[in-house]
């Protein structure tokens, strides 16, 4: 009879080596075939691993493309500081698209629920268009969500930035077809085959620094839709929502209005790995209100051009 362990593609360092080599291969393919690639970088753990891999892929030369952050204006201060540190440390170039600018110009309207995660799509597509970027790296992983499980490593987007799941190209062997017509671009996901646990084990092995909010800290939080939310520029507790001070950490880092904290005492990467192994919830199910909106929330956002 079989007892199961939590899903991971890793049993040994060999498996991490395989994932690392695959990701580096993908970075180099893009550098060889595209004119203007860009890495989406938020300071979250997945995009931080992405930047680490890009540095390794081109060493001793500098990373041959810039970074882009679509900033909702609802980000945690610790994460933004960390983001800027990484950029400085590796001598990278960062472009920032502020969602607030689009709102100020009247190109976007604040949503009644105050969340800005879905508002990122327009600034992202505008930035891709203005920067003439033809390849856009994202930290998406297939284990995150079932619509993402269907995504190719090279995912063609039409001139409107939309994902057309029925028209995906067959992706055979490790031959990635990045050809596209003018105005189209390709989203590239080097971490496609990584699980959450793989990411953490790689962070451990490579001693990759992360924003402090991934580890336990005391924070005032209030409960909404079953999640612990923090107060911030995006607002605070509504009537009847009680404020508690708890030991929490974040499993994902996104727009503060819809990213929940989990109660945790995990203060080191080792602690986090133990916690993720024992968890009975997926990282998105535990912490992301935006994915709970409907059965096809992620697919719908991707069709509109989301990450």
């Amino acid at each position, binding site marked *: *009879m079989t007892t199961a362990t939590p899903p991971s593609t890793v049993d040994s360092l060999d498996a991490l080596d395989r994932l690392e*080599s695959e990701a580096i291969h993908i970075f180099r393919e893009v550098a060889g075939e595209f004119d203007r690639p860009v890495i989406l970088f938020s300071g979250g753990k997945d995009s931080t691993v992405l930047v680490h891999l890009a540095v390794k892929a081109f060493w001793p030369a500098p990373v041959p493309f810039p970074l882009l952050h679509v900033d909702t204006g609802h980000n945690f201060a610790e994460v933004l500081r960390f983001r800027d540190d990484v950029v400085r440390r590796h001598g990278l170039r960062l472009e920032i698209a502020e969602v607030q600018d689009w709102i100020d110009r009247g190109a976007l309207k604040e949503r009644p629920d105050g969340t800005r995660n879905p508002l990122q799509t327009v600034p992202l597509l505008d930035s891709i268009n203005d920067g003439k970027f033809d390849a856009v790296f994202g930290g998406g992983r*297939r284990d995150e969500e079932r619509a993402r499980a*269907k995504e190719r490593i090279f995912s063609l987007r039409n001139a409107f930035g939309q994902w057309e*799941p029925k028209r995906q*190209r*067959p992706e055979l*062997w490790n031959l990635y077809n990045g050809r596209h017509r003018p105005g189209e671009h390709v989203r590239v996901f080097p971490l496609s085959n990584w699980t959450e646990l793989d990411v953490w084990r790689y962070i451990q092995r490579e001693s990759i620094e992360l924003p402090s909010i991934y580890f336990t800290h005391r924070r005032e939080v209030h409960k909404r839709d079953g999640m612990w939310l923090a107060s911030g520029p995006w607002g605070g507790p509504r009537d009847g929502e009680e404020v508690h001070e708890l030991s929490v950490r974040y499993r994902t880092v996104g727009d503060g209005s819809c990213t929940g904290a989990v109660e945790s005492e995990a203060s080191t990467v080792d602690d986090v790995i133990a916690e993720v192994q024992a968890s009975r919830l997926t990282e998105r*199910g535990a912490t992301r209100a935006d994915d709970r909106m409907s059965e096809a929330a992620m*697919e719908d956002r991707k069709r509109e051009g989301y990450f």
Partner: protein
Amino acid sequence: MSDLLRLATAGSVDDGKSTLVGRLLYDTKSVLADQLDAVTRASVDRGLSTPDLSLLVDGLRSEREQGITIDVAYRYFATPKRTFVLADTPGHVQYTRNTVTGASTAQLAVLLVDARKGVLEQTRRHAAVLALLGVPQLVLAVNKIDLVDYDEGIFEVIAKEFTEHATRLGYPIGSVLSIPVSALHGDNVVTPSESTSWYEGPTLLDHLENVPVEADRDSAPDAPFRFPVQYVIRPRTKEFADYRGYAGQVSTGSVKPGDEVVVLPSGGRTTVERVDVHNGQLDEASTGQSVTLVLADNLDVSRGDLIASAADAPTVTDELDVTLAWLSDTELRPGARLLVKHGTKTVQAIVTDLRARFDEQKLSTVESPELLRLNEIGHATVRVSEPLPVDEYAVSRRTGAFLLIDPSDGSTLAAGLVGKPLEVQP
């Protein structure tokens, strides 16, 4: 024993592939609580009394609406014995190209049939695709065995018919196992069934955990060294002013400093000076490793070139003898002008001759067909604008493989395999 098994599912529409995968994930406790909650809620909304496990994997709205799988879904799960990367592929004939995608990297395929229907046209089509792409191990899961009252005779007839078919496609005895299962109820998926006492073989999961995975041919220790150059690394910084390295991933074989190599197609010879990785050097790099090679002599090397073992170099040719799996709605006719993407090189190509079409139902060939249609397999001659260094696909799943691409819109038209990897036994 290998710690990782890459597998793909295949089979006709409605045979229950997604339910089987859902069952496998569920019974290995690889489904987390919030995912199960979502599926339970959605099943109740659809008026079902038990959770519909196929909803775990059918991730697209149109898939759930139609109750079919359209595209490959990749799943990752583990037991204490092994880690699994599973490609759940569609059964609908229109989406066979996505089955080809899932099969191109698989070490084992689980092919489903409905016990009430037996081996169908699509079963034979998928078996041919799996044999063509060189998936070394097959499992025939005879599903819905509960709907034929767990009848041993029905199972035996289907298993025998399929095994004979697979043998003719080149699968040796021992590489095909048939298992009676009910994905819906879980019989013989993870737990042995009490209703099939006549079946003495392993459950599906038992087999997946214990089947010896033929070490990938490409990583065999004696495989010749092949290294498609992806990118030239020239830092032009003060510290690395004269550095020139060739970045790539070892396709097959291994490489170490001092090895004699040849750069193809030009034919220039030199030795490997260093095998670099970030902040260091390796004594040796082998199949699948991404490294940067520094060569002893200053040759003209760029993206698209192949660095190979000088003692055992591949054939360089501008006329390729190939097998094609045609994946496009458009038709292929002799004279078509296309692009070939092989390794890191893309060149112009003309399909000069369509020599035969393979009838995957009768396992026979039709000589000189007029055209190839969606999902058809054929032998062809392809002339390329620049000579390519190729190996037979039967020897290397990397340097023997290529894509045919439509130059007008960039779409992938065919999976190309050098030589005739599909040899049908009489």
